[in-house]
């Protein structure tokens, strides 16, 4: 039997902006199985960023249930959520979000630093991850010495370092030209083939087609769900 890594049940997120009530998410239910590659698509303002924040445990739902790896995130406090992000979620951002003062290797090591893993082991794991994205020769480089594609690959290596339950990619090709964007998507697909659960958030239909399942969001609701778009 396949195991659900993500179980989202009737989740809403409501913001109060200057007296006005904004429903960013409105009763969303969604399951993701282990090893799946799911794309969440939608125009800006559709609530996909809010959904990503909730899946990534950066935010908590106003209403509804979200369970990650079978555990409801309601049971966690701030520190607990930080620990969940650290161990179960690998973030890939549009702007790469590498720390400019750290080398590629140190960037990849960072999640492991917060796990309290000792330096030698940390280095070993980080080097393995860099090898996996083909940047083992650039480990002493600083982000500004790397091309955009290379930076995003370092970010992927960082996301993989703590062996997360899900890889959460937010517009990973948004800041790249189409050729390098394609390469990055190929790399994510490859990682998915090796068994890694991937959730991709994008507004780009072409990018979304790389995923095996697409979920379309509009106005905070799921409007379409299917294998092919």
């Amino acid at each position, binding site marked *: 039997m396949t195991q659900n890594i993500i179980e989202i049940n009737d989740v809403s997120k409501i913001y109060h902006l200057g007296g006005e009530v904004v429903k960013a998410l409105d009763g969303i239910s969604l399951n993701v199985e282990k090893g799946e590659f799911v794309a969440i698509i939608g125009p800006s303002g559709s609530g996909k960023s809010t959904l990503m924040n909730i899946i990534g445990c*950066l935010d908590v739902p106003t209403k509804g249930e979200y369970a990650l790896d079978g555990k409801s995130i309601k049971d966690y406090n701030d520190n607990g959520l930080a620990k969940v992000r650290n161990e179960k979620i690998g973030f890939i951002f549009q702007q790469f979000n590498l720390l400019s003062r750290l080398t590629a290797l140190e960037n990849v090591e960072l999640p492991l630093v917060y796990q309290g893993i000792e330096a030698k082991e940390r280095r070993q794991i980080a080097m393995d991850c860099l090898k996996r994205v083909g940047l083992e020769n650039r480990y002493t480089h600083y982000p500004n010495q790397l091309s955009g594609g290379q930076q995003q690959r370092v970010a992927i290596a960082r996301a993989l370092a703590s062996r997360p339950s899900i890889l959460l990619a937010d517009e990973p090709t948004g800041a790249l030209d189409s050729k390098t964007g394609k390469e990055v998507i190929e790399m994510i697909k490859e990682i998915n083939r090796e068994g890694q659960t991937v959730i991709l958030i994008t507004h780009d239909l072409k990018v979304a087609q790389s995923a095996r399942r697409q979920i379309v969001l509009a106005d905070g609701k799921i409007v379409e769900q299917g294998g092919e778009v």
Partner: protein
Amino acid sequence: MSIAQAVKMALKNIYTNKLRSLLTMLGIIIGVAAVIALVSIGNGATTKVTDQVKSLGSNLINVNIQGRGVQRSISYDQAMSYKNIKEVKYVSPILSANTNVSSENITKKVSIDGINDEYQKIREYDVDYGRFILPIDVDYRQKVAVLGSNIVYELFGSSNPIGNYIKINGSSYKVVGVLAEKEASMMENINDKIIIPISSAQRQFKSAGVNAIYIQATSEHTVEAAKEKIEKKLLKYFKNDDDSFRLFNQQDMLKTMGTITTTLTMALGGIAGISLVVGGIGIMNIMLVSVTERTREIGIRKAIGAKKRDILIQFLIESVVLSTIGGIIGVGVGLLMAKGASSVLDLQFVVSLNTILLSVGFSWFVGVIFGLYPANKAAKMNPIDALRYE
């Protein structure tokens, strides 16, 4: 995240922003340097004053006759009778006056002390050449004089004065000795004085009494007892008029001086301490800027799993490392300043380990206190907002 890891990270960050870090530390450096230098100079001054008081002679009791009231003065014999007190070793009554002294070359107003032979033992003066005043000089009112090292030069230049004559108020005195140079204290400068037998002085200055009495106790343990007995006798002699004389011993003076210089040192240290606090505010200011600048970094760190505590420790340690490095540099600068100042002001270079530890400790404390607010601000940031920060 371990503390060692955080310190490493802080050092790296401080090193990356060299100029800014240096400017931030400057407040602490100046503060600590000022504390170290001023306290060290204060201690040096205390040591100097103490040495001067001690150089007046050990176990000394000083009596000044004010000459007021019914009984206006005290005679030489009366003063010498204090030698019968068990705790008293030497007594030297003094009659001093300022008067014109002339040699063949020059006439000059000089301070003259009429003394007896015990004066030398009490005040620990050495004779450079010739001899000191002897008991026989006092007994027979010999017109002999011993000159201080400066006055000798002024009256006789570089020629040998021994056996020559000087005129004090017109009467001739034979120069029999020259005193060795002794560092002037704030009390008196013996190098500028002439001393003659007290009996001669009494006749010369037409006075039967004495101005002052120097008394040496047998040991430091008997000073208080001797002082009390002398005071009793003086009160009796002056018919209970304690305005007629002033009695004090070296310990009293040391205590008074000690109080003054300690207060001074503390005041200086306190002012310098204020600049340390100002330095701390400088650190807080820069840390706040740094937290704002690094909002995105904080967001990234939080997204990939940094707990509140991790961020708090990171920024707090950065501020503490900054202030501690500043403190250590400040100690170095302060010691150099103290060394320079003590050689310019001719003071002893006194290094107080307590002051060093205290000021480094205080700068560390300043780092914690003024780092806490910015670090807490960083730790409390919402990761979503922080990630979105441009």
